[in-house]
């Protein structure tokens, strides 16, 4: 194998007049982990698609081990050993783990699917990556982390030479990320060239040997990891320094805006007491699947629950549905914006207005066109959503702008309490910073925020107070001097059983 196993040679691709990739050249040695960095729109996705064979380049070539290759279809790329794990999974929820791993090339004996061999080989791969679920589990019953592992197992079931991973840790907790890194290191030792796309700096420093930065479709630079810092990478990505990444925290808080006592969701969640003050960001941390989702879904009315007391601004309220919660002043930003946040085929304006039509924008049974236009314009301006116009389809926006629409939709209802799950998932560095600013602007105006995030730096950077959950309970509460990654992880793992990969609540 050569030193430059995978080479991009002057690869260019444009859509209409827009250059998605312009003359990009760099190479990745065998047995090497290369991080690929860049803001959304920098050309990472296009580069991945060209390598994976889903689109063709306009000019330039890709070489594997010195041989020029042009993959006309994804299958050709797969057959050449180039395997891609996308951010959005390509799994069939109704089939078992083993069937998904071998989907497309199920081993057969005389035309019959050889179930025994599928199970045995799947078990072996699952063991290799440290998965605890059975090859017979239905993929739809696994949580996001489990499904991610199935995707990795799928890649490993092939003779992989180049592995592309697009934001592979977006849905994983720290323990699972560590497990993933073990697998990546093992593959590197086996001589695989790995192209690793991530927005998370800490991870890049932990796993990558070197880093390539793209900006506006061009190759800005490739550096060994020892030669760069977070600062210098951010500067390469956005062409300027970000300064302090997280906005300053709150210094004083108002009266409690939310007080809950004796909250439970079946056996998945038992919380004795939870208090959120005005102007406070309350972080919810813990290993994956310890009741955090149940907690935020219960508070926001998306899941039924029992509670002894549920007070908003000191007054008891009864929340039995999302509609009750919205009426009581609770806004909810779900973690999967494509599934639960936006109607991607509808316009940005329609998405922004949907939650407020019946409450703020009505003129009898009719929607007031002028009120709606003003409402939409105000939100677009306040959140700095980048649009060609209010009629632009939500699905045509970048991840960061889509997330701003989700925020706008919820903020339009003027909530007193904002519950958010993974608010910056799949959002680029610049938009992330803007979303943090938005959250802090809200708290300054007295909104109380509940922030569920699997990213510890985000929890630490944004929270005024952190609740650590394990096994469906709150096991620790910490504020700024004592809160740190170590303290949170210690609390999260002290009482928790082994990390639950199976999500029994489905």
């Amino acid at each position: 194998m050569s030193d430059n196993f995978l080479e991009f040679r002057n690869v260019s691709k444009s859509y209409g007049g827009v250059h998605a990739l312009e003359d990009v050249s760099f190479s990745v040695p065998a047995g090497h982990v290369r991080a690929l960095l860049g803001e959304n729109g920098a050309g990472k996705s296009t580069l991945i698609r060209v390598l994976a064979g889903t689109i063709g380049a306009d000019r330039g070539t890709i070489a594997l081990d010195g041989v020029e290759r042009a993959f006309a279809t994804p299958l050709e790329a797969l057959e050449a050993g180039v395997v891609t794990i996308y951010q959005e999974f390509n799994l069939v929820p109704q089939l078992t783990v083993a069937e998904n791993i071998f989907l497309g090339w199920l081993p057969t004996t005389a035309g019959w699917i050889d179930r025994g061999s599928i199970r045995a080989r799947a078990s072996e791969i699952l063991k290799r990556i440290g998965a605890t679920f059975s090859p017979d589990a239905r993929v739809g019953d696994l949580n996001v982390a489990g499904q991610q592992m199935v995707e990795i197992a799928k890649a490993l079931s092939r003779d992989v030479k180049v592995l592309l991973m697009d934001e592979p840790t977006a849905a994983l907790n720290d323990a699972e990320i560590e497990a993933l890194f073990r697998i990546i290191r093992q593959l590197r030792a086996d001589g695989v060239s790995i192209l690793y796309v991530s927005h998370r700096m800490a991870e890049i420093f932990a796993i990558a040997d070197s880093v390539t930065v793209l900006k506006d479709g061009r190759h800005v630079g490739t550096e060994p990891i020892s030669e760069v810092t977070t600062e210098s990478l951010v500067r390469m990505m956005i062409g300027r320094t970000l300064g302090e990444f997280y906005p300053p925290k709150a210094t004083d808080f108002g009266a409690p805006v939310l007080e809950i006592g004796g909250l439970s969701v079946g056996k998945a969640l038992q919380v004795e007491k939870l208090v959120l003050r005005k102007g406070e960001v309350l972080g919810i941390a813990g290993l994956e699947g310890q009741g955090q989702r149940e907690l935020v879904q219960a508070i926001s009315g998306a899941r039924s629950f029992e509670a002894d007391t549920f007070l908003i601004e000191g007054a008891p309220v009864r929340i039995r549905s999302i509609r009750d919660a919205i009426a009581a002043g609770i806004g909810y930003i779900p973690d999967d914006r494509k599934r639960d946040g936006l109607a991607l085929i509808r316009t940005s304006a329609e998405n922004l207005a949907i939650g407020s039509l019946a409450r703020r924008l009505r003129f009898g049974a009719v929607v007031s066109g002028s009120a709606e236009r003003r409402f939409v314009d105000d939100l677009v301006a306040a959140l700095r959503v980048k649009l060609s116009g209010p009629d632009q389809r939500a699905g045509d926006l970048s991840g960061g702008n889509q997330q701003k629409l989700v925020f706008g939709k919820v903020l339009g209802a003027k909530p007193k309490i904002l519950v958010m799950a993974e608010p910056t998932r799949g959002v680029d560095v610049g938009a992330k910073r803007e979303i943090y600013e938005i959250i802090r602007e809200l708290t300054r105006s007295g909104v109380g925020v509940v922030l569920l995030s699997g990213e510890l730096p985000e929890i630490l950077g944004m929270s005024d107070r952190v609740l650590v959950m394990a096994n469906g309970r709150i096991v620790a509460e910490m504020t700024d001097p004592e809160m740190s990654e170590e303290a949170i992880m210690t609390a999260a793992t002290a009482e928790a059983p082994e990390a639950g990969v199976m999500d029994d609540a489905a």
Partner: protein
Amino acid sequence: MALVSPAASTSAPMKMLRFFITPSGAVWIAIAILLAVAALASDNFVSGDHLLNVARHAAALCIATVGQVFVIMTGGLDLSNGAVITLVSVVASQLLGGSDQYLVPVVLLCLAMGAAVGLFNGLIVAKLGIPPLIGTLGTFGILKGAAYVLTGGAPKGGIPESIRYVGNGTIAGFPISTLCALAFVAFGAFLLSRTIFGRQLVFLGANPSAARLSGVPVARIIILAYVFSGVSAAFAGLLAVGYTGVGSLSLGEGYNLDSITAAVIGGTALTGGSGSVVGGAAGVFFLALLTSFLRFLGLSYSGQLIVQGAILAAAVILQARVFRR
């Protein structure tokens, strides 16, 4: 990737041009092409009289299609509307017996029957989670059977002059039924695009989960869509029986599939959340024009069915391939 361009300035002609390459715009091009071809084939096909006649034939289907568009926009289907039309025709015929004596109560009863059928459809779809295809097919069977039971297989009675006038008469040369249909299309278009009910309906069709989390009363809106379709069908039934003048067990035949075809040709996506009432009406006019033209060319009924089926398939493929990315 779209970036900032304050107050996207698109000129009116450009907007119009763009409209014609959308799913709801394409049907107008199809109508224009069909008219052009027909004009080449015959001197008197594309005449005011003939086109008005086509529009009169299409009135009942047009009204049923408005309701169908609402249901399809939620991601559902209403296969029962034709059976409502049949039932309304025989009930009106039997209860009125050709006299105007009980006109108002019977008309109201017919519309209420349509609403009740829609309520039933809506409840089994939205509350019991039965797939709309199966649920409304079941309703279709029940209603068809009920019409046979009520008439003993042979509809009696008759339709009074008043309803026949609405179904058959003209005002200043315009068929009254066509005017009714146009008014209903305008009403449906307003309901869908300007009212809170309509906007919530469109959004939930595009993404039910996001709609629920945005506080849209999803089940209630879906039920109302089926109720609206049921009432539309009842109204269509009154117009249709006013045209034929006698209740018939086969009057509503084909309306379910025709209304779905028209909606799809008019740009309404079967996946929900995207479409237009006016487009659906244009789809009806296109179908009626096509049927009339094929008949003019001497094509048999079976031949017409084949062409119509092929056009439905083409419309769906066009939507999936060209208009979606």
